[in-house]
């Protein structure tokens, strides 16, 4: 059962088809290529497509459908009552639960592929496994046969259809544009898939915790008791402190990133000599290439203790995982983002604006303040919004440098937690997917997704509007 060899064979057949088709095109034209409608390579490609594509579609469809069909057949052939394990109870096959069916099928598949089954299995399971293996083998042989027949039929018709008036190029181009369409929708489909998975899991969560409590509750402690007799940890899922934490850290990050990034952009585009600009700009962009995990331990091991010690030395009570440290480092991470985008929009302001202003006797700073920044403002707003949505979604820095306890506070010296941190902690390890603790990650993710999506949409629209103005 080797699918990859099968596919490689198919590719080889297509290549053979390509050369045959190309040759035949040359032969039918009596060596005068200019009499052909398309170049010979298009005729070859056309044959290759007809050999490969129908067989491949057949393969994909077969692979998708064979598992449920075989499983249905295996179940259908079971006796009325079976034992799962050697000493187990008799189960009525018609009344098995979904979990029991899954377990049964897992055992069957494991035995059929020669792996070790989870428990000592009964003869019923062994018989089913043998049946399963037979069906799989049969299905595979049938699939090979069907694919070869499809390839042969495709090759036959495509090969025979070759004549100088055949529009091979048009057919090939249609197929290629179809392939490009599939590729471009792939990203869209992935997004849809992500949204759907978020939606379903969040829906599960909201059947356990009411949306009102989640969106408006001010108490977040997701630790739930695993056993009924465990102490404490009843679980509270009011997400406001978590979102407030994200907001606080984002605000701190933007307070750092926006002025610094903007000043850097103004300096680089208006004041810096070309030599300075050509060195400083790439160096700033290196900052954007630092992995966020590196920023994370920089924040946790260098900045946070520094902030704490500095605060303590002037008599402030600063937590070691203060929102300030995480926010400042996140701001530094975003600086190149803001400055690079702003630099682009400032450079897009036409030179004639600057000339007009200088020609009136305006100084450089007046020109920047009164003419260039207002003209570039929409683009700068767009840049800042994009930066905000990055800050909100940023994970690694806050996982390492921000705390876990959900404090509802606006004090940057206290420890806060963020949405992304909670998602990470609730989903890593060995989560059970029926506890609200795990599922809450999806609800948080959903809200986060909606917020950043809105920000991105607004930002992109603003940036777009700006672009239209000067082009």
């Amino acid at each position, binding site marked *: 059962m080797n699918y990859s060899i099968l596919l490689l064979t198919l590719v080889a057949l297509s290549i053979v088809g390509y050369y045959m088709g190309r040759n035949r095109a040359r032969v039918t034209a009596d060596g005068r290529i200019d009499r052909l409608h398309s170049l010979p390579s298009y005729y070859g490609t056309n044959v290759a497509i007809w050999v490969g594509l129908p067989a491949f579609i057949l393969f994909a469809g077969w692979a998708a459908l064979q598992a449920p069909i075989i499983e249905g057949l295996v179940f259908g052939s079971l006796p009325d009552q079976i034992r799962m394990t050697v000493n187990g109870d008799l189960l009525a096959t018609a009344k098995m639960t979904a979990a029991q069916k899954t377990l049964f099928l897992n055992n069957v598949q494991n035995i059929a592929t020669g792996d070790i089954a989870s428990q000592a299995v009964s003869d019923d399971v062994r018989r089913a496994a043998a049946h399963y293996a037979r069906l799989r083998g049969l299905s595979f042989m049938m699939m090979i046969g069907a694919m070869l027949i499809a390839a042969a039929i495709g090759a036959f018709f495509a090969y025979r259809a070759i004549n100088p008036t055949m529009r091979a190029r048009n057919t090939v181009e249609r197929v290629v544009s179809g392939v490009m369409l599939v590729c471009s929708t792939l990203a869209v489909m992935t997004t849809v898939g992500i949204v759907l998975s978020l939606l379903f899991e969040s829906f599960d969560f909201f059947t356990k915790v009411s949306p009102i409590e989640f969106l408006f509750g001010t108490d977040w402690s997701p630790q739930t008791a695993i056993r009924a007799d465990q102490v404490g940890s009843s679980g509270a899922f009011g997400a406001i402190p978590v979102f407030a934490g994200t907001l606080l850290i984002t605000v701190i990050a933007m307070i750092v990133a926006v002025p610094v990034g903007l000043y850097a952009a103004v300096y680089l585009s208006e004041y810096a000599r070309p030599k300075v600009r050509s060195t400083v700009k790439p160096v700033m962009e290196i900052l954007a290439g630092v992995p966020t995990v590196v920023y994370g331990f920089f924040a946790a091991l260098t900045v946070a203790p520094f902030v704490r010690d500095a605060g303590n030395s002037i008599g402030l009570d600063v937590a070691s995982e203060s929102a300030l440290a995480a926010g400042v480092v996140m701001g530094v991470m975003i600086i190149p983002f803001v400055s690079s985008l702003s630099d682009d929009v400032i450079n897009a302001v036409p030179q004639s604006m600057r000339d007009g202003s*200088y020609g009136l006797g305006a100084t450089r700073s007046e020109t920047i303040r009164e003419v260039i920044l207002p003209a570039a403002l929409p683009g700068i707003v767009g840049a800042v919004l994009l930066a905000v949505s990055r800050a909100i979604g940023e994970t690694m820095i806050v996982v390492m440098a921000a705390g876990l306890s959900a404090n509802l506070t606006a004090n940057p010296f206290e420890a806060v937690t963020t949405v992304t941190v909670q998602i990470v902690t609730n989903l890593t390890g060995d989560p059970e997917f029926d506890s609200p603790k795990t599922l809450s990650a999806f609800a948080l993710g959903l809200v986060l997704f909606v917020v950043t999506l809105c920000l991105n949409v607004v930002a992109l629209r603003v940036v777009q509007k700006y672009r239209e103005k000067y082009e």
Partner: protein
Amino acid sequence: MNEAIAAVGGTAETAPQAPPGLKFVTRNVCVFYGEKQALNGIDLDITECEVTALIGPSGCGKSTYLRCLNRMNDTIDGARVTGSLELDGEDIYDPRLDVVQLRARVGMVFQKPNPFPKSIYDNVAYGPRIHGLVTGKAETDEIVHTSLAKAGLIDEVKDRLQEPGTGLSGGQQQRLCIARAIAVSPEVILMDEPCSALDPIATARIEELIDELRENYTIVIVTHSMQQAARVSQKTAFFHLGDLIEYGETAQIFTNPQDEKTQGYITGRFG
């Protein structure tokens, strides 16, 4: 055109050294862009309250010369100016001179209308505000209105002063730019092909305006249109390949050019 030329007559002598009534006296002006020399020692005087036209084929240095007069070449990387340029007897390339004040005295209108992305009102008020010429709303209102009136634009825009200046038509935008320059009360207005982006009707409006402005302002205009130079200017200077070929009364340049190149250019044999 012919009538204008006939009325002025032909005195062929270049102006004497710095008599009263000369706004700019420039001697041996050379401009380099990096290694490339764009102007090779220009001696030219600009008479007060007259229109001086600079003509010549593309790349002859006339715009470069114009941009020396308010030091706009400073904004170009690698541009270097040598020689002496005096405005009312003051060296304008003196390091002690404040270029901001120079540009307030010598305003500029560009080839392409370039209103700021602000309202019509703020476009005109911009200059007076940054130079502190106005305090309070009433004064600003007055200067905006008189400037727009001088530029012949007030009737068209007086009901929509708060609308963006970029929403006006090309000719209106150019007159807005002239109003913007006038609002700072300059002594000289430099115009770099102010009509090249405009249709003939808008061009005629601007030319009329230039003729009116001549009463109070010294105007230096770069133009590609010989007819325009003949219509609006009193003095004409012909540039070719970075040299000043001929300078004199407009009528004389157009009817009785002394230099073969000038004659070739104005009769359309090259350029």
